[in-house]
């Protein structure tokens, strides 16, 4: 990988064959009936989506990114480690980013084991992230949302202990007791794979990343919030004696490249609409199970007309979030501008948008591989040379 610019390709692997009456349901998460899941169609989608991750590697992306959601048509990755295991033998160069399983929804020792397995299997190409999980996950899993943050911290503590101390060790926590914490295998990378916290920029998650010196993979944050987040994290991490490097602050960008701006919009907008209106459609109660948010955060979110879940206006989305839809030149320009402003060189590209068909995803990946990525690498290299002279 070129050390100065990094491109990830993130896939959500949605189940896109929603029934005709799906708008009758307020949410495509949590209680959206699973009778609408057709495993034959699901099989075809898995085949296709896995191939798209492989293509991303072939065209020059530095990493592929998968994550975890439950009870939803939004994602078919209830167990992202299975997806990672399936692509490791097919992906030769790219890193495998599992960003990730909420560590409090799994036994921490088991997650330490699974991630170590993937790291060993991929010869040290794994990166992991520790999300708290959306509110929706807590309606689907038997974990208390009111104590989720404490459990999340304890689970991370156990995983890091398992990876940094020779076993067996003991752990006597509020949620977990280990008499023999001694997981086999251990990670390939030393002391452990690069780690990120995942979040939407809440103070709690920023504090945690700062304390641990982890990267921060922000999801669906507005442009303004991303800027504040990165500044805060750098400052707070420094107070803990950690220096946050640019590549630890991936910016998540929904991107689509075509021959002209008009064509790009024409090809992408309907899938953006599907993504926000249908795939992300859920209820305020599912988004915020009791105790999951602070009251201040709940009021903040309730006061904003929710731009993210179940409503779509391309101009609003474009204005608020990192969306780059246009020619390769335009997308390069936007990415460079955002990278500069946020102090990052790491772009996490959502390039398979909503119910986008395979040909568009491949077209998008190819534009990235042939134009966007080499151009940005070339310019970064030129800048490096100028700086060196």
């Amino acid at each position, binding site marked *: 990988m070129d050390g100065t610019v990094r491109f990830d390709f993130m896939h959500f692997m949605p189940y896109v064959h929603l029934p005709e009456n799906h708008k009758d349901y307020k949410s495509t998460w949590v209680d959206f009936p699973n009778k609408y899941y057709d495993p034959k169609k699901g099989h075809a989608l898995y085949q296709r989506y896995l191939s798209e991750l492989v293509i991303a590697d072939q065209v020059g992306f530095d990493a592929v990114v998968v994550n975890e959601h439950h009870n939803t048509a939004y994602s078919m990755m209830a167990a992202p480690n299975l997806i990672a295991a399936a692509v490791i033998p097919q992906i030769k160069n790219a890193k495998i980013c599992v960003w990730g399983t909420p560590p409090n929804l799994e036994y921490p020792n088991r997650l330490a084991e699974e991630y170590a397995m993937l790291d060993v299997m991929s010869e040290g190409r794994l990166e992991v992230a520790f999300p708290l999980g959306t509110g929706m996950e807590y309606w689907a899993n038997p974990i208390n949302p009111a104590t989720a943050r404490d459990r999340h911290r304890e689970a991370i503590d156990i995983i890091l202990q398992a990876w940094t101390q020779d076993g067996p060790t003991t752990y006597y926590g509020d949620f977990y007791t280990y008499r023999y914490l001694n997981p086999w295998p251990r990670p390939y990378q030393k002391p452990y794979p690069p780690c990120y916290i995942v979040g939407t920029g809440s103070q709690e998650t920023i504090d945690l990343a700062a304390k641990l010196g982890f990267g921060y993979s922000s999801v669906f944050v507005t442009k303004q919030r991303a800027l504040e987040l990165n500044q805060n994290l750098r400052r707070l991490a420094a107070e803990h004696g950690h220096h946050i490097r640019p590549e630890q602050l991936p910016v998540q960008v929904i991107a689509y490249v075509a021959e002209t701006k008009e064509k790009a919009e024409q090809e992408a907008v309907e899938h953006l609409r599907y993504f926000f209106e249908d795939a992300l459609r859920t209820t305020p109660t599912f988004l915020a199970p009791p105790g999951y948010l602070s009251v201040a955060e709940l*009021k903040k979110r*309730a006061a904003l007309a929710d731009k993210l879940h179940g409503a779509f206006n391309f101009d609003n989305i474009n204005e608020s979030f990192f969306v780059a839809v246009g020619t390769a030149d335009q997308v390069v320009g936007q990415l460079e501008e955002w990278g500069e402003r946020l102090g990052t060189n790491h772009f996490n590209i959502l390039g398979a948008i909503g119910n986008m068909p395979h040909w568009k995803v491949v077209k998008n990946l190819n534009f990235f591989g042939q134009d966007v990525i080499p151009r940005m690498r070339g310019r970064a290299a030129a800048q490096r040379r100028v700086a060196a002279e």
Partner: protein
Amino acid sequence: MTATAFPPQFKRETHTINGLNTTVLTAGSGPPLVFFHGAGIWHGVNFALPWTEKFRVIIPFHPGLGEADDDPAMTDIHDYVMHYLDLFDTLGLEKLNLVGFSLGGWLAANFAVGHGHRVERLVLVGPAGLRGKERPKGDLFLLPPEKIPAMLVSNFDVIKPFLPDNPNDLDFMGARYREGGTLARLWWEHPYDKKLPRYMHRLTMPTLLVWGDEDKLIPPAQAQIWQSFIPKADIQIFKGAGHLVLDEKREAVDAVQRFLS
């Protein structure tokens, strides 16, 4: 909101219990009557005024609900029992009549199971806490918050004055969300008490079970289940009342008073 939820006859006292600020409403004189409120107390305590004629009525806000401070470390009904042992010591209450409604009924039953010698008479009004066949009907967490008020009563006019005019009132929404977090700590894993039936034979004090026949949250059929576990419990069911039977039916308030007198 047009009505006064907490009438001026009630005086507010604040006590620091194990480091936690706890507000207690008191009115009247006579033998002590402690009322344990339910999971929400925004509808107030107007129903309790008639009791103040014969009793010293004491209504503490449970930690994490209403006007009490939060204590995230309280994650179990027995933390609340311990809290009330401290509070009753502070108030100098040795023996008392105990009336518990809904969540407060579950708490009252747990208090009385462990400390029955202090409870002269016990009244459980639509108590939560048992795993009935009717589950999951009574699981508050299956209801979107905006649907809960209508589930509480037979006659919506009874609680309407205590609700904000704007259904999206942020302060009201935030206050209920905060209380939801308290409840989640208590019963997210199990919205019932697996162990309580095992110990209910210890409820040897005279006990009254009160229910509204239109209770949509905890069906009145649960009265018989409670009765089957308690050595001597009477049941009184009030027609045309929902879960908030005390707010809806003065007859229910009077029945409690007669039982305790």
